[in-house]
């Protein structure tokens, strides 16, 4: 099988753009991706677009045709909503369409406008990724949900707030050269430990920031890329998706993410690789504990062993298993609906040798992107590989 290629990517800078509309954010990213790819916009056959909280943040539903119009495309356009995994789900559908031969060129992407509704508004909007009846009405917030998992994890496997602080410090380090990142500042373990509590045991530095931004990628069939002479060496060779029970209380585990494990197993089998083959990973670290759960779900670490990875330097750019070289959600920022495609963009640039850290991982051939919705009631995993 010839694998779909990532032919071009585009991002807005991630950060606080309170006064910019979602459609303007997406137009910037989408046009950047088209320009980066060199693809004739008339060849684009569909837009698959991720967005989570547009109704709450902008009073705007039915966003997909609006976004197609914003990038100058007159194509069938569909919005994907899977909370924070919205654009990961969009990528997966694009890959399946391209593989089936139904299309040769698809624009995927996502955008989210969040800072215009303030911290309280964004906390409210994010919370609706949980079960309204049985979680939100019991005061569960998005950080609160991960705090519940963190405590369960600590109790079962051990681990401390300091271990989590090392995840934050590492991801801030990684974001320093990333011109698209929201938080480009070095922090210390002490900074993280001294920060105000959000939902005990998680503090402010355990949480990703609230972010405005958009992402886009032009995915094409390998045949189309070759026929048109595009330089697109990175293919998406594996895709996986899984769901879990919506509410934490109804899960088999409070300290694991089985949906992510299932999605990873499917993606690895699809790509015919295993966790040992992975050179670099972008994982969904909406909270520091989420990175720990993610690297265990992906099989990069055994259950209970991911907690020390950052402290030991293993997941740092200088370590054996670099994780979140973009800065992750923690430091790059997390414009919810844009995150899944932004991860694909980061891995692609890294494997192409065009990212700030590429020289530090110059033999990397296999990357994995892990995108999670809510408390991982939705998960998508994609394997990207440099093609011969």
């Amino acid at each position, binding site marked *: 099988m010839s694998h779909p290629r990532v032919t071009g990517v585009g991002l807005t800078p991630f950060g606080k753009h309170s006064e910019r509309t979602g459609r303007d954010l997406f137009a910037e990213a989408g046009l950047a991706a088209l320009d980066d790819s060199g693809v004739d916009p008339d060849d684009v056959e569909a837009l698959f677009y991720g967005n989570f909280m547009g109704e709450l943040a902008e009073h705007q539903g039915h966003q997909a045709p609006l976004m197609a119009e914003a990038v100058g495309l007159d194509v069938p356009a569909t919005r994907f909503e899977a909370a924070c995994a919205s654009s990961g789900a969009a990528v997966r559908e694009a890959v399946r369409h391209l593989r089936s031969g139904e299309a040769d060129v698809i624009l995927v992407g996502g955008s989210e406008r969040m800072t215009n509704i303030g*911290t*309280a508004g964004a906390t409210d909007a994010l919370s609706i990724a949980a079960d309204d009846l049985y979680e939100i009405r019991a005061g*569960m*917030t998005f950080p609160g949900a991960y705090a519940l998992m963190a405590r369960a994890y600590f109790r079962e496997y051990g681990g401390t707030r300091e271990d989590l602080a090392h995840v934050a410090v590492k991801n801030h380090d990684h974001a320093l050269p990333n011109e698209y990142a929201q938080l480009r500042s070095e922090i210390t373990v002490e900074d993280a430990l001294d920060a105000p509590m959000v*939902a005990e045991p998680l503090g402010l530095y355990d949480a990703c920031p609230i972010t405005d931004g958009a992402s886009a990628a032009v995915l094409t069939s390998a045949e189309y890329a070759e026929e048109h002479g595009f330089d697109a060496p990175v293919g998406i060779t594996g895709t996986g998706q899984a769901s879990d029970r919506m509410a934490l209380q109804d899960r088999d585990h*409070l300290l694991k993410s089985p949906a992510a494990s299932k999605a990873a197993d499917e993606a690895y089998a699809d790509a015919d690789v295993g966790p040992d083959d992975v050179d670099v990973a972008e994982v969904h670290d909406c909270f520091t504990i989420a990175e720990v759960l993610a690297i265990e779900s992906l099989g990069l670490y055994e259950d209970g062993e991911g907690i020390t990875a950052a402290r030991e330097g293993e997941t740092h750019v200088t370590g054996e298993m670099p994780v979140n070289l973009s800065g992750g959600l923690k430091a790059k920022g997390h414009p919810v609906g844009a995150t899944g495609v932004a991860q694909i963009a980061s891995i692609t640039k890294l494997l192409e040798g065009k990212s700030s850290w590429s020289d530090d991982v110059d033999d990397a051939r296999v990357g994995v992107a892990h995108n999670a919705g809510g408390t991982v009631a939705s998960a998508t995993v994609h394997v990207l590989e440099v093609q011969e």
Partner: protein
Amino acid sequence: MTDKARDGEYDDLLDAIEDGEGYYVECASGHGWLPPRRVCPDCGSRELTETPFPESGEVATYTTVSVATPQFSADTPYTTAIVDYGPVRVTGLLRGVDPDDIEVGMPVGIEVGERETTGDRAVVFRPR
């Protein structure tokens, strides 16, 4: 919230808890859930029986929330806990204990309380 429609089985359950007759639904294989459920998501059974909550459950995990949504702003800091009642786990507000004294495994009973910010009803746990 006077003209807000009831949320069916959810509000029925809260009524029952208020009357001291709280229940969950359970399939023959012992998988427990909160209503509404027409089918057990674990085994597919459609034969679900209302079963009374045991006298007390055990705190499985908890967090004290400082940054809340606007619907809970006046409740902060408050503690949300997931409590194990055997076949079913329930999420609610843990009250009547200092956050520093909460322990996983602590026995708690279930009742219905009022949210300070909005006056809405909520599932509340108290130490037994």
